[in-house]
C-alpha cells in the first residue's frame, strides 16, 4: 500500500501512463510540435524521446492539419497513435480531419474500421498567453458524434484516463488544464485504468452538488470548504469524462442534494455546463429545490492583460455566491 502513497505531478502522471502503454504496445507512437528532444513547451513529454527514440516520438513542422491527418490514417491502419495539439486553440486547424474523418470513419464503414487515437491538448487560462493560447474549446468536439472526451483533475485520474484513452478503440480527445500540470497527488504505480464515462465523487456532501470539470474541480473543492464554514454541505462530483458522460452518478447525486451548480472553465454560454445542467435537470427534476445553475467564463475572447485574464477563470467566490442565491 505504501507505493500508492507516492506523490507525483499531474504532468508526470500523464507521461507515466504514456510510457507504460508504449512499453506494453509497440504499435504506439507520439507525434506533435517540439515533443521530441525539446520535450514539449511545458516539458509535458519529458523522457519519452530519450526512451522511445525518433521512430516513436516524432517532431513535426507547424502543421496541425497534416500531423492530425497522419494520425487518423495511422490509426485506421491499426496503430495506436497519440497526437499532441499544443493548445486546444489549435483544434481549429484540425477540424476537418477530426470532424469529417476521425469521428465518422468507424460508423460510416459499418464498423469495418476503427480509429484508436488519442488527441492530447492543453486548455486553461493563466500566465498571460493571450487570446489564442488560452481557450478551453472542449465543447466543440463534444457536439460531434464519434468522439470521446476526457478531462482529468488529479494526477491519479490523469494517469488512469490516459491509459484508458490509449487502449480505447475510438478517437479520444484528452484535455489537460496547463495550470494543473504541477499539481501533485498520489498516483498508483503500474497499470492504473480509469474507465471513460465513470464520474468520481471528490467530496461527499448533502446540501448541494458541485459538478466540475478539470481544474474547476479544485475551485469547487475550495468553494466546498467555504460553504462548510457557512453550514452548507457541498458534494463535489468530477465527471472526468465529458463524452461519455456518467449521467447516472450525476443525477443520483443531485437527487440526494436537491441542488446543483455546474462549473466549467470554458465559455458559459453554449458550453458543456449547459449540457450537464440540462441533463441533471431532466433526470433529477422531481428532487430539485432550485434551478440547476452554471458558472463558466464570460462571453468574450480571453484578453492578454493580467487582470483581464483573471476574470476569465471561475472562482470559488462565484460558486459560493451562486449557492447562497439558491437559498434565497
Amino acid at each position, binding site marked *: 500500500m505504501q507505493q500508492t502513497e507516492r506523490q507525483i505531478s499531474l504532468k508526470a502522471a500523464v507521461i507515466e501512463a504514456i510510457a507504460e502503454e508504449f512499453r506494453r504496445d509497440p504499435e504506439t507512437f507520439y507525434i506533435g510540435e*517540439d515533443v521530441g528532444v525539446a520535450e514539449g513547451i511545458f516539458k509535458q513529454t519529458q523522457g519519452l524521446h530519450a526512451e522511445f527514440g525518433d521512430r516513436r516520438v516524432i517532431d*513535426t513542422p507547424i502543421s496541425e492539419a497534416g500531423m492530425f491527418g497522419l494520425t487518423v490514417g495511422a490509426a485506421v491502419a491499426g496503430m495506436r497513435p497519440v497526437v499532441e495539439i499544443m493548445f486546444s486553440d489549435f483544434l481549429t486547424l484540425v477540424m476537418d480531419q477530426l470532424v469529417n474523418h476521425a469521428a465518422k470513419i468507424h460508423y460510416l464503414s459499418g464498423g469495418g474500421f476503427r480509429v484508436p487515437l488519442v488527441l492530447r491538448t492543453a486548455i486553461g487560462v493563466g500566465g*498571460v498567453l*493571450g487570446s489564442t493560447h488560452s481557450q478551453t474549446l472542449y465543447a466543440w468536439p463534444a457536439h460531434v458524434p464519434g468522439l470521446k472526451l476526457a478531462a482529468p483533475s488529479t494526477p491519479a485520474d490523469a494517469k488512469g484516463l490516459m491509459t484508458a484513452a490509449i487502449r480505447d478503440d475510438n478517437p479520444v480527445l484528452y484535455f489537460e488544464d496547463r495550470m494543473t500540470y504541477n499539481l501533485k497527488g498520489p498516483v498508483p504505480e503500474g497499470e492504473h485504468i480509469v474507465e471513460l464515462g465513470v464520474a468520481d465523487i471528490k467530496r461527499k456532501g448533502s446540501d448541494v452538488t458541485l459538478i466540475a470539470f478539470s481544474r474547476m474541480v479544485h475551485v469547487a473543492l475550495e468553494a466546498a470548504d467555504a460553504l462548510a464554514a457557512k453550514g452548507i454541505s457541498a458534494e463535489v462530483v468530477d465527471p472526468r469524462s465529458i463524452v461519455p458522460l456518467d449521467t447516472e452518478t450525476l443525477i443520483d447525486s443531485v437527487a440526494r442534494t436537491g441542488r446543483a451548480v455546474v462549473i466549467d472553465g470554458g465559455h458559459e454560454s453554449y458550453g458543456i455546463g449547459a449540457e450537464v445542467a440540462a441533463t441533471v435537470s431532466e433526470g433529477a427534476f422531481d428532487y430539485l429545490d432550485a434551478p440547476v445553475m452554471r458558472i463558466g467564463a464570460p462571453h468574450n475572447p480571453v484578453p*492578454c492583460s493580467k487582470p*483581464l485574464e483573471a476574470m476569465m477563470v471561475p472562482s470559488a467566490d462565484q460558486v459560493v455566491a451562486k449557492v447562497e442565491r439558491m437559498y434565497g
Partner: protein
Amino acid sequence: MIDSAQALAIFESMLLIRRFEETVIDLWATVETEGHRHVYIGQEAVGATIMELLREDDLILTTHRNHGHVLARGADPGRALAEILGRADGFNKGRGGSAGLTVRAAGFLATTGQVGGGIGLGIGAAQAQKIRGRGGICVTFFGDGGLEEGIGFEAMNIAALYSQPVLLVCENNSVGVTTGRAQNEWSSSSMAAETLGDIPRALGIATEVVAGESVTDVHEAASRLIGDLREGRAPAFIEMRTRRWPGSRSFNPQLVTGVTDLDGVWDPASVTGEHADWINRYDPVIGYGRDLFRQGRISRSEIVAMNERVCRTVEAAREFALASPLPSAESGLTGTFA
C-alpha cells in the same frame, strides 16, 4: 542607391527598434515576468526598410513578432510598450499583449500569433486594394514557420490566380539554427524545401532571396517588387534570410549580445566576446551604421546624437507605459461585438 535622407531615416528607425526591444527584455527581467514576447533584434533592416517604402494607404499584416513593424510604421512607442505590458493605455487596451499588438491607424489590419494565419488575411486586404484600384498594396509579414501551415499554400494560390497586389515577406530568421532544439528553442524551418521561394514559384509567383541583414539588399529588392506591384505585376514573394540572433528564446529572450554598443560602428576592434561574430557579420544595426559611416553619410557625433534622441524616446515610452494603469477586470467584459 538609397538617398541620404531615406538612409538616415531607416537607420534611425532600426536603432529605435533595437533600443525598444532591449527595453522590452529589461522590463521582463525587472517588472513583468509572465507571458511570452518575440523580439525583432537581428531583423531590423527588413521592417525598417520596407516600411520606408510604403504609402500611407498600404495595408500590413504582421505576426507575434510585430514590435519592429509597428514602430517602423511610426506608431507611438509609449502606447506600443503599454500594450506589451498589458496596460490600459496600450493600443489595444491590454487585450492583445506583445503577440497581439496592432495599430489600425498605422495600416495594420491584424496581428496574429496564429502561425501563417496572416497569409490568408493578406489576400483579403490585397483584394480590397485591387477592387479600390488606387494603387495601394498589401504587405504580409510572416516567419519561415508560417509556410508550414496549409493556409499559406491556399492563400498564395489564390493570390497568384487573382494577380493580387500583395508582397509576401517571409522573414526566415532560422538561418544558422542547428542546435535549437537542444536549447529548448523551437526547431522552426522544418520545411522540406531548401529555398522557401520554391513553393510560391511553383504557383507562378515572382520570388527573391535576400540577405535580410543588409538594408541595401532589402531596399533594392523590395523597392523593385513594390514598384511592380503598383503597376499591376503581382504578387511577389521575398525570403528575407537573417541569421538567428543568439539571444532568441521561445518565451524569454535573453540579451546575451548585451546592450548594443555603437562604438562597434566606428571602432570594429571594440567588438569582442562570445558573440562578436554575430555582431560583426550579422547585426543589421552595426552593419548599416558602418556602411553609412564609411560612406561619410553620418559622422560619429551624429550617430551619438541620434542614439541619444532615440534613447530619450524609448525612456519616455517606458515611463509612459509604466505609469499607465492595468485595466480593470470589468473593462474586459465589453466589446465582444461591434
